[in-house]
C-alpha cells in the first residue's frame, strides 16, 4: 500500500497481469481460465496439490512456454527466474556459474554483481568450489542467486526452498524479504504452507488447473472457518471444493 500527497491510500501499480490463461498437454488441461494481477512489491504464493498447474503457470509467466489461450502482460521487463529443478552447471564453480549468467544477462559491473550475490547468499567461502561438490541446500542458493543476477523488479520462483533445511529456508526468506523491502515483487510456488502463511501477502490456490482462491492468507482461513493454521484451512478448503 502506498500513500499519495493528499494522504489517500492508493494501490501500487500492477506489474504482472495474466488474463484467461489456458494450457493443455494433449488431452490433459493444465490450466483453465486462470487470471491473476500482481502489484508491485507484493509477495504472492501459488499453492495447490500436486499437478494443480503451479509450475505451468509460473513457466508461462516467465516466458518459458506459451499459453494456448489468454494473455500475459509484464510491466517489469524480463523477470528473474528460479526454476524448481537446479538450473546451473555442476562442473563449474559457484563464481563461474554466476559470472557466466551475469555475462549472458548483460550485467554492467560483472565483478561487483557476482561479489554482491556471493555475499547475499553466504557462499563467498565456497565461491571457487564446483557446484557438484556442494550440498543440496547450497546448490539451491546458487540457483536462486542466478535468478537474481538480472536485478529485475519481478522475481518468479518455483518452490525455491524445497531442497533447503529449516535454517537455510529462514535465511532464504530473510533475503527475499530484503528484496521486497527494496521494491521487488516476488511470485513463488510452494508446497510448504507455513511459508505462504508467513511470507506471502496474497495466495493463489490452484487445483486441477483451476483458480480456486485469490486473496490474503487470512482470507482463506476465514473462508473455511476456524482452523489452527493455513495448512489445515487449505486442506478443508480443497475438500469443500471437491478436491
Amino acid at each position: 500500500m502506498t500513500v499519495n500527497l493528499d494522504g489517500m491510500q492508493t494501490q501500487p501499480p500492477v506489474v504482472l497481469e495474466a488474463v484467461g490463461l489456458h494450457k493443455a498437454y494433449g488431452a490433459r488441461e493444465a490450466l483453465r481460465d486462470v487470471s491473476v494481477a500482481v502489484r508491485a512489491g507484493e509477495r504472492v504464493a501459488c499453492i495447490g496439490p500436486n499437478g494443480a498447474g503451479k509450475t505451468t503457470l509460473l513457466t508461462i509467466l516467465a516466458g518459458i512456454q506459451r499459453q494456448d489461450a489468454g494473455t500475459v502482460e509484464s510491466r517489469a521487463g524480463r523477470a528473474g527466474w528460479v526454476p524448481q529443478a537446479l538450473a546451473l552447471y555442476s562442473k563449474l564453480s559457484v563464481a563461474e556459474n554466476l559470472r557466466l549468467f551475469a555475462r549472458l544477462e548483460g550485467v554492467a559491473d560483472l565483478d561487483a554483481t557476482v561479489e554482491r550475490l556471493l555475499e547475499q547468499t553466504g557462499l563467498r567461502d565456497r565461491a571457487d568450489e564446483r557446484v557438484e561438490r556442494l550440498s543440496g541446500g547450497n546448490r539451491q542458493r546458487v540457483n536462486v542467486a542466478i535468478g537474481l543476477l538480472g536485478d529485475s523488479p519481478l522475481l518468479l520462483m518455483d518452490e525455491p526452498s524445497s531442497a533447503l533445511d529449516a535454517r537455510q529456508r529462514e535465511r532464504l526468506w530473510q533475503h527475499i524479504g530484503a528484496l521486497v523491502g527494496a521494491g521487488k515483487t516476488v511470485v513463488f510456488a510452494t508446497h510448504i504452507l507455513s511459508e505462504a502463511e508467513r511470507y506471502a501477502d496474497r495466495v493463489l490456490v490452484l487445483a486441477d488447473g483451476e483458480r480456486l482462491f485469490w486473496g490474503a492468507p487470512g482470507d482463506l482461513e476465514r473462508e473455511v472457518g476456524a482452523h489452527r493454521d493455513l495448512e489445515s484451512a487449505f486442506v478443508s478448503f480443497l475438500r469443500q471444493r471437491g478436491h
Partner: protein
Amino acid sequence: MRSLLAKDLRILWRSPFLLALLVIYPLLVAALIGLSLSRSPDKPRIAFVNEVPAGQEFSIGDQTFDFSFTERRLREHAEPVRADSRREAERMVRDGDVLAALIVPSDTVQKLDSTLDSPQLEVLVNERDPVKARLVDDAIEAAVADANRRVSRALTRTSIEYLNLLLDGGRVNVLGNEFTVLGLKRIGDAIESARRRLPRGSEERRALDQVLTFNRLATENFGLSARALSAISEPIRVEKQAVEGSRVPLTTFAAAVAVAISLMFVTVILAAGGLALEREQNAFTRLVRGLVSRGRLLAEKAAFAVAGSVPLTLLMLLAVSAFVPTEWDRFHLWALAVLAGAAAFAALGTLVGALAREVQTASLLAFTLLLPVAFLALVPDGVLSPALHDLTRVISAAFPFDPTLDAVTAALYGDDSMLGPLLHLTGLTVGFGGLARLAVGRLG
C-alpha cells in the same frame, strides 16, 4: 556465444574421462589402422612350399620351368612367405602368420611330363574368416591362372615354331642329332620344277598336279593355323578402364575411412552431448528465455563440436601419416575436407541433441544412428540387389559420412575433385541445421 563456448570447453576440460576418450579414441583408431596398414599390405601373406625335388624341371620347347616361377607368379598377387615343409606351412596358417599356404606337390613335374594327368597344386586355408578366405581364393586363383597362361603360351610358341618348320623348313635337333627339314614351300618348288620337265598330258604330270594342289592347300592352312594358335593362347584379353572414381591406394582409402569415422563420432557426440547437457542441467530454459536465441545456441554447440573435433582429427591424420605416404603440400585440402565434414556432422549432432533429453540418451542415439550409416556407406557396389543398392545410396547421401569420406579421400590422394563432396556437405549442414532449429523450437 563466446561465453557459452568457453563454458563448454571448460566443462569438457573438467570431464577427464570424456576428454581422454575423445583424445585417445581417434589416436587409437589411427594407430590401429596405421599398424594394420604397415603390417598388412595390399596383398595377403601366403606361405609357399615347393616339394618338387631340386633339379627337376619341366621343359616346353626351349623354355624350362623349375616351379619357382609359381612363387614369382604368386608374388604379383600376394606376399609369399617361404615355408620349408608342409607341416610348417600348416602351422603358419593355423597360427595366423599367413592367410593360406600354396603347396607344389613332389609329383608335379612327372604329371606334366606324362601329359595324361594334370598336376594339382594344394591350398591350405583357415576358413574361420570368410573375408580372408575370399582374399586367398582370389590371390591363388589369379596366380594359378597366370601360371597356366604362361605354360600355355610356351606350348603355343613351341607349336608355332614346329608349324613354321614344316612350312618353311630349317634345321632341327632331335636327341642331339641335327636334321634338315625341307619344308612344304620348298617341297612345292621342287615338285613344280620336276613337273615342268614332264610331257604335257602325261599320267605322271597329272599325278604331280594333284600333289601340288595338296601342297598349296597344306601351306595355306598351316599358315592360318599358326595365326589361330597365337590367338587361342590368350583368347580373351582384358583392358581395365575406370569410368567412375580413380584408383585410390588401399592405404589412403583406409586412412580416409579412419579419419571420417573418428570425425563423425567425435563431432556428433560433442554437439549432441553439448546440447543435451543444457537440458540435463535444466539450463536450457534459463538460456532461451531471452539470454540466448535458440538459433545462436545451436550455432554455439556446432562451433563447440567443430572446435573439439577438427584439431583431434588433424592430430589423428598426422599420426596416420607416420604409416601412410602423405603429401604435406595438400595439408590445406585436408583441413578444408575435415572442416566441411565437421560442420555437417555438427549440424547432425545438434539435431540428435535436440531429440534427446539426457547426454547418455544423446550418445546412445548417436551411436545407433551412425554405425549403420557408416556401414551402409562402406558396402561395396555390386554386392546388393539393384533396389537395395539404390536405397543404400540414398541413405548414404542423406548423411555426412559418405561425402566426408569422398572429400577426405580426394584431399589425401587428389585425383577426384573435392568440389562435389564439399557442396554436398554444405547442403547437409544447412539441411540438418534447419531440422535442428525446428526440433529445438519445440523444446520447453
